[in-house]
């Protein structure tokens, strides 16, 4: 599970470099996210623009990361592809995440500029 991070003063962006988050990689994804967010207190933007497939295990892992980060460190999403957006919509999980069209929009929101 390859994740690319970029640290800014007020936002940490994490780009998923894989085309799937599924039952085979959900646990690995969760563990990598835990390592990446161990330090720092910025907002976290998870960019899913490269992810073409997400199953309910992958969705559960993203929810678990949100819970792990807690209420003071929001997890926001960006770049949902059609299939990923569909999974969020059908499970109504789109209502509990702030979802930005692109990572650039997400960053400008997060920094308030």
């Amino acid at each position, binding site marked *: 599970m390859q994740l690319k991070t970029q640290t800014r003063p007020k936002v940490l962006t994490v780009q998923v470099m894989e085309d799937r988050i599924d039952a085979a990689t959900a646990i690995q994804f969760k563990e990598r996210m835990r390592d990446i967010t161990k330090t720092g207190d910025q907002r976290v933007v998870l960019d899913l623009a490269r992810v073409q*497939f997400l199953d309910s295990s992958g969705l559960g892992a993203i929810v678990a990361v949100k819970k792990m980060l807690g209420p003071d460190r929001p997890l926001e999403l960006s770049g949902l592809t059609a299939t990923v957006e*569909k999974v969020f919509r059908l499970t109504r999980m789109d209502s509990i995440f702030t979802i930005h069209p692109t990572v650039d929009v997400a960053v400008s929101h997060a920094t308030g500029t």
Partner: protein
Amino acid sequence: MQPAPDPFAQADTHDLVIRAEPTSVRAALLRVTAVAPVADLSADLRATVELVLAEVLNNVAEHAYADNPGHVAVTVALQPGALWCEVVDEGGAMPGGALPDGRLPEMGASDVDLPEGGFGWHLIRLMTRDLQYRRQRGANRLNFIIPLQD
């Protein structure tokens, strides 16, 4: 005498048997969506088929074969207006002999209560029709169709 023609032995049918574990499930999904009949569907329908089969096969791996790993057989066949699907495994029976109702899990009052699972059968039920489950001679047989209207 000629044997009766096998109604599914045609180019618009695809079947395969895999080990029921996540890496094999992923390989099976990539295979099923890359060849006829699923490969000929629209991108949106291919995604639906992939998601439904992912949820069904991961359930088999995680629950039916929770104690003893085993194999699962998948067949997809093109019918007028629908993709017919069958998934057969020899793992444990569905609890209570029936499929979960697929109700969306409770969202909870705050983030700590958010559900991390229980979405699978909700997604399957939303995207399929004519779901049927039978337990026969030590095997689980799940049938459903996926409507092909975008």
